[in-house]
């Protein structure tokens, strides 16, 4: 009776997937980006606040920058927002936002109410840029070097811990390497 074996086969497939998912190389929290050390994927998006202007990789050409994927529906984004605001006041590294899979209206309201830590935000409603950049779920934060390469990727809300232990050393190294 084939039908009684179906659950077993389905479970077997699932276990196969899980085994691959457990691959120690695949450490999602740390370095999930295949672009790490490579040039960040090109993007060209309408700006969130000024829809008829565009923003692309050129915005941060030649400087160390942070690109933060966020959305108003996202749990962790609200959590990290206060810290981003603090960074925008205390740190020299410019933060660019990409409003991902979102609607313009609530996003603008969010920025006007909670504050806008971004130099500028791109508006990526259909996730073209998100897919190119391999975004798994918002929020995700990328550190981009002067040469446009991805230096770091952080999954989940950006914490003070991650900032001090991962980002700051990488920023110091990146600023130092090139005069």
């Amino acid at each position, binding site marked *: 009776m084939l039908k009684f074996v179906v659950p*077993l086969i389905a479970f077997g497939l699932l*276990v196969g*997937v899980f085994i691959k998912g*457990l691959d120690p190389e695949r450490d999602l929290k740390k370095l999930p980006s295949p672009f790490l050390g490579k040039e960040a994927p090109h993007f060209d998006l309408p700006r969130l606040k000024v829809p008829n202007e565009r923003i692309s990789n050129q915005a941060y050409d030649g400087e160390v920058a942070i690109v933060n994927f966020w959305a108003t529906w996202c749990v962790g984004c609200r959590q990290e927002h*206060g810290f981003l605001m603090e960074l925008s006041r205390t740190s020299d590294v410019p933060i660019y936002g990409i409003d991902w899979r979102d609607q313009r209206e609530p996003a603008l309201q969010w920025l006007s109410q*909670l*504050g806008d830590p971004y130099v500028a935000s791109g508006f990526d409603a259909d996730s073209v840029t998100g897919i190119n950049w391999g975004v798994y779920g918002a929020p995700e934060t990328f550190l981009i070097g002067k040469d446009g390469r991805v230096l770091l990727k952080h999954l*989940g809300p950006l914490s003070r811990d991650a900032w001090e232990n991962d980002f700051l050393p990488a920023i110091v190294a990146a600023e130092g390497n090139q005069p």
Partner: protein
Amino acid sequence: MIPEVGHFALILALALSICQCALPLLGAHRNDQAMMGVARPAAVGQFVFIAISFGCLTWSFLQSDFSVLYVASHSQLSLPTAYKISAVWGAHEGSLLLWVLLLAGWTVLVCRYSSELPEKFSARVIAVMGGLSFGFLLFTLLTSNPFERLLPAAADGADLNPLLQDPGLAIHPPILYIGYVGFSVAFAFAIAAMISGDLDQKWARWTRPWTTSAWLFLTVGIALGSWWAYYELGWGGWWFWDPVENASFMPWLIGTALIHSLAVTEKRGLFKSWTLLLAISAFSLSLLGTFLVRSGILISVHSFAVDPERGLFILAFLGIVIGGALVLYAWRAPSMDSEAGFRPVSRETFLVLNNVLLVIATALILGGTLAPLFVELLDGSKISVGPPYFEIAFAIPMVPLVLLMAIGMHTAWRNQAPKALVNKLRLPAMVAVVVGILIPLIFYGGTSVMLAVGAIAAIWVMLASVIDPIRSWKRGAGSVALTRGAIGMSVAHFGVGFFVLGVTVVSAFTVEADRSLRIGDRENVAGYEFELRGLKNTTGPNYQALEGEVDIYKDGDFIGQVRPQKRTYLVQKSPMTEAGIDAGWNRDLFVALGDPLGNDAWSVRLQYKPLIRFIWLGAFIMALGGLIAASDRRYRLTATQKESVRIQQGEPA
């Protein structure tokens, strides 16, 4: 010393779990009374040792023994005592210990209430539960020992995650776990039946109260979790389709299907193999859910610490337990189905539909939860599945389920004359349509298609649920009373209607506004005026907070003050939002304090949430229904008494 006692007790419990599993199984196979007799004492002994171990860990927390690594990482001197206790299960190692404690607790209950069961059968059930316990204990001892020492000891601890420092979260995991672990009883019953190879209607009767009890705890646990997320996470949502939430919701859906399928198996002896599969699946999904988030395979906002080594152990254990059960199923189930028939219009048909729709809903949620993993492994790209997918995918099977539920519970077994059914339900149907359209128009000033469908379905189910209780009450004393099973069913279904009404109205008429307020400013949201009276600094035992005072007025009359807080916990430095909520039976007014915007203005999130309490109240009513049904007399009667009772009474599902 105390931690070592706890560690040692855990090792003794492991040894006993081996006896509890192996000897009764062998005894049942060989028909050896003495070996089967080991089952109960071994189970009780195991429970005692795990309880000692749990007590030792709790003691270490209360003493703030920071030479224990787990205590040092999850507690702190100034942590309030209640949270020192709840911190015991606040992270991976301790929650695992809680899990085995509850498993041992359920096993002791099974020992206590299984005296009427055939000896071989109860020996096998207890043995299977002993086997599960062995796996968990081994996992705890090998990879997640909560008693590991930290030498030299820390001067102070790293504090409990502030998100968990809340009464709602302190009690919600244990209740949720009671539900998860409770499904192990149905699982063990299924395995025992498959080993012995015979499964009759009595089997379903034995299994039902255990399943219903586990289900009702799971219901309460999920509702508490949702309530906690609502007021603690700070933005007023109540369900987020996060992997951890889905992990608790899938066993609930399958458990619900199992309860209904068991009814058919008990009453009519049908769907035996299907019921077995559901019993296996409910517990398997509990395992899969709780352990997926601990292995780091799936990422969630509230997942536990990730350790690949643990992941592999978990996976191997899941493979043995679930895979073993499914192999047994593939081998034994084909011989179990019986051939009794039923007509298209009968309760059996509606219960089949119930099962199909619940399983579809579970499959869609499982698919959505695992899709990012599948896609990534197939072609390396990453996708994210969010609430929009889940909301639509879930609504598709749920709308027909709720609409059919009202008809199903009034349909007779085997064959139902359609005409009588129509007569019985015509009036409630008409009332539901009229009221379902009018209520939103009158009270909230608008309606839409989805809103009307939701409101009609909700009222339809609630009305249909009370028909039988009202008729029985009208007939008065002297006539045959409804069984507890029937009352429980009515109550639980009424709870479903209540819940649906809450969800429908909340999603249609919530008003959310992010405003910037200066002290003295007033803002009008949904007819309520919110005035920011003042801001002050306060301190708690282990945090500092900025507290806002917001007065709320309606038509110029003062109706209450709420005090939303922004807390900063001193050790972990993380900011937390404590919303201020003015609760009422028909609406919540929700105020959360945001960030300073400059010029003395603060961003404040104001929300009006009509009927949101119905969501949790509905869930509690469902659980109450489960409690009533599980306490039905017939589960405690002997076989002969049982027959005469069934002849007298109606047949509830």
